[in-house]
């Protein structure tokens, strides 16, 4: 189906089911229970999962296929967000024009940066992209404040023109982002026993776009164009000696991946109409590299998993505090309770990045192929038990899974 092989179709369908059922899957614990702390099924985080998943899918098209490590991808994300918010300020609160403009602007911006940066490869390319991204960040943070509103971030206000919409609603508030009237932030809440499931319009818009992006990425992976990009990764010199000009291919990959980032940035702004300069900072660029490597660079599903993993740590672990720890361990005797809290304390709350760092190190050392490799190893373990023959032929033949 969709011009995909049977295996890829299956993968796409599984991903589609997972994203559509995310509100159930991410809320496994009844609200009010002690474990509810680990629920991730609320609109904002689910939106972030798919949006950053999209960002990482795009990044992986460049890094996973061509091997060019861009350290400045957050710049495109930021540019996408700013374009979208400007569209909300000037045109209307409908998300369609905002998304379209953010992709176009990110494409143009990545064409410019890619054209210059791709003159070099390897570490020089990474440094060039990093320099451009930091330049964009500093411009957005201070120099271009009239356009970007600097440190505070660009917000929509009551006196924006909004030519095709209203400047303010009848009750005197700022209108909300919508898709032909369906408000992005509207959420349907479903109470099942003591469980609460939230179905958010914005999330489903993001999820559908993520699936489209995922589908497109499968098509690119399997296309002759994708094969050419892999050839660039394995030996660019050999390609050149055969008389091929590789630059159009790498530039196309760079721009496509920049457009994914722009789309992700635009979606972030659609879900929450604010564009902050921090979105362009080098830490944000580094984050997408981490996501891709953590999940498994060069694999289809890996970047999405990595994105979800990092966002989960950032949003869930950072919110656990000592009070909650004391609740968890309250069954233990007093001395032991305090000891446990003392032991766990450095890894939660403000220590969330420490926990993430340790996990990242463990994954890179023991699972060089990322989380996907972990999944494959577990899968192989089961397969070996059921069917004996040829356990070693599987991994090398399917590098893109």
């Amino acid at each position: 189906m969709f011009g995909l092989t049977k295996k890829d179709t299956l993968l796409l369908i599984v991903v589609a089911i997972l994203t559509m059922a995310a509100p159930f899957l991410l809320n496994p614990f009844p609200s009010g229970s002690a474990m509810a702390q680990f629920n991730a099924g609320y609109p904002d985080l689910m939106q972030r999962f798919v949006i950053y998943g999209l960002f990482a899918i795009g990044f992986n098209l460049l890094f996973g296929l061509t091997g060019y490590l861009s350290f400045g991808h957050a710049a495109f994300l930021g540019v996408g967000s700013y374009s979208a918010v400007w569209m909300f300020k000037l045109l209307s609160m409908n998300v369609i024009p905002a998304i379209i403009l953010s992709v176009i602007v990110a494409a143009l911006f990545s064409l410019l940066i890619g054209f210059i940066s791709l003159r070099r490869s390897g570490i020089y390319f990474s440094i060039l992209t990093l320099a451009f991204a930091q330049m964009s960040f500093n411009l957005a943070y201070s120099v271009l404040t009239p356009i970007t509103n600097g440190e505070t971030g660009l917000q929509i206000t009551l006196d924006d023109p909004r030519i095709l919409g209203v400047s303010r609603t009848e009750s005197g508030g700022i209108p909300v982002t919508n898709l032909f009237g369906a408000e992005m932030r509207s959420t349907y809440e479903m109470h099942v026993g003591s469980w609460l499931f939230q179905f958010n319009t914005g999330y489903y818009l993001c999820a559908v776009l993520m699936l489209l992006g995922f589908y497109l990425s499968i098509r690119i992976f399997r296309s002759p164009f994708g094969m050419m990009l892999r050839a660039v990764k394995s030996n660019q010199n050999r390609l050149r000696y055969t008389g091929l000009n590789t630059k159009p291919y790498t530039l196309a990959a760079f721009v496509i991946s920049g457009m994914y980032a722009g789309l992700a940035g635009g979606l972030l702004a659609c879900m929450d109409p604010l564009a902050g300069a921090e979105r362009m900072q080098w830490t944000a660029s580094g984050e997408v590299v981490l996501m891709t490597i953590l999940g498994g660079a060069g694999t289809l599903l890996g970047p999405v998993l990595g994105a979800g993993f990092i966002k989960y740590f950032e949003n869930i672990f950072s919110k656990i505090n000592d009070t909650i720890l004391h609740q968890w361990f309250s069954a233990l005797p007093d001395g032991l309770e305090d000891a446990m809290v003392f032991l766990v304390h450095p890894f939660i709350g403000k220590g969330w990045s420490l926990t993430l760092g340790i996990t990242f190190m463990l994954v890179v050392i023991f699972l060089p192929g990322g989380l996907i490799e972990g999944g494959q190893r577990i899968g192989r373990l089961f397969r070996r038990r059921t069917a004996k023959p040829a356990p070693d032929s599987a991994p090398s033949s399917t590098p893109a899974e």
Partner: protein
Amino acid sequence: MIKSHLTRRGVLKTGSVAGAGLAVPTIFTASSAAAYTNEPTGNTVTLGFNVPQTGPYADEGADELRAYELAVEHLNGEGDGGMLNTFTSKALTGNGILGKKVAFVTGDTQTKSDAARASAKSMIEKDGAIMITGGSSSGVAVAVQGLCQEAGVIFMAGLTHSNDTTGKDKKANGFRHFFNAFMSGAALAPVLVKNYGADRNAYHLTADYTWGWTQQESIQAATEALGWSTVNNVLTPLASTDFSSYIAPVLNSGADVLVLNHYGGNMVNSLTQAVQFGLKDKMVNGKQFEIVVPLYSELMAKGAGASIKGILGSTNWSWTLQDEGTKAFVKSFGTKYGFPPSNAAQTCYAQTLLYADAAERAGTFNPCGLGAALEGFEFDGLGNGPTLYRAADHQCFKDVLVMQGKQDPTSEYDALEIVEVTPRAQVEYSPEHPMFAGGELGSCNPGA
């Protein structure tokens, strides 16, 4: 290069699946019986404490969190009650808020607008927080205030000093207890003139972002009105740690006062370097060279160590004040944590009490009713003397402290001493003042 196999069947299949996908969002529409966002239904009410736990202002954030936890204890009737006993409004009885026990959730803003909004959203969407408070940077405060306005919950600003928070970016659902850059200028300028004379030439080094600009503008206007002239204003990139290249030209500029519009780690670095360059020992135009830091914090003073001796600045509050409210607060904070609170801690503690009190007086958690109870509210006993929550811009008006680095501090918490308590009347301004113009509160949003 991409091969395509367009078939009628394929197009139909793809189209129908895509159509179904696009139709999904329209199935779900908002449905909610509550009168306002996160109306508490059980026997607890959840407050969201959103402070920087990582990044440059993590120390401030940690102190704010301590104050919030203390405030929750006192609201629930635990501990010694702190400023509840000195607060002039007696609506709070130590029985939670409106009979509901106060619970709280915490989050990390990372001092980034984006992360702060994500954290605040998770508090509202996941934990059902009815009020968000916190922040150690004006950018973050303005961003979160905007979010709370959209989501329909109250935002009680923590440490935010920029004029914009209650100026051009003010919001109906947002309230600020902390003072602002304009008040710093109005309080500081007369003291500067009194100590250093009226014929001074000031050189400004300013952090290159919104807060830095509004502060520089405020100080320049306030000092120039009293006869000072401004030689130059140099913007320093926010990520600078080495200010030597900015400090060297100061000596040759003919200026005899250096104003450092920096905060946090930036201020610690720039001040330390200025002192190392020997600026304070120089004589320019026949006058002693002076350095001014308009916004002080206890934590910065601690970081800068001996460099701050004799340097003037302003704060919102100080634990060395001798009124009953301050004494009660310092006592209960000190008993719990073993050291005195910073002025960031005090503003956060006061904001929590003010919110709880407004809910009691309004008889509801509805942001509109509660906001009306805060607007124009006059109170005392929270450490700052008689205070007014002005209805026109949701800014508190109270005395401002001018502080000076102590010559011989007795402990690391005793680095600053009060030079003057500037009366409230001297720092008041019209809501239409040009530095605050351009925004409007809009109408309160109860969400839902």
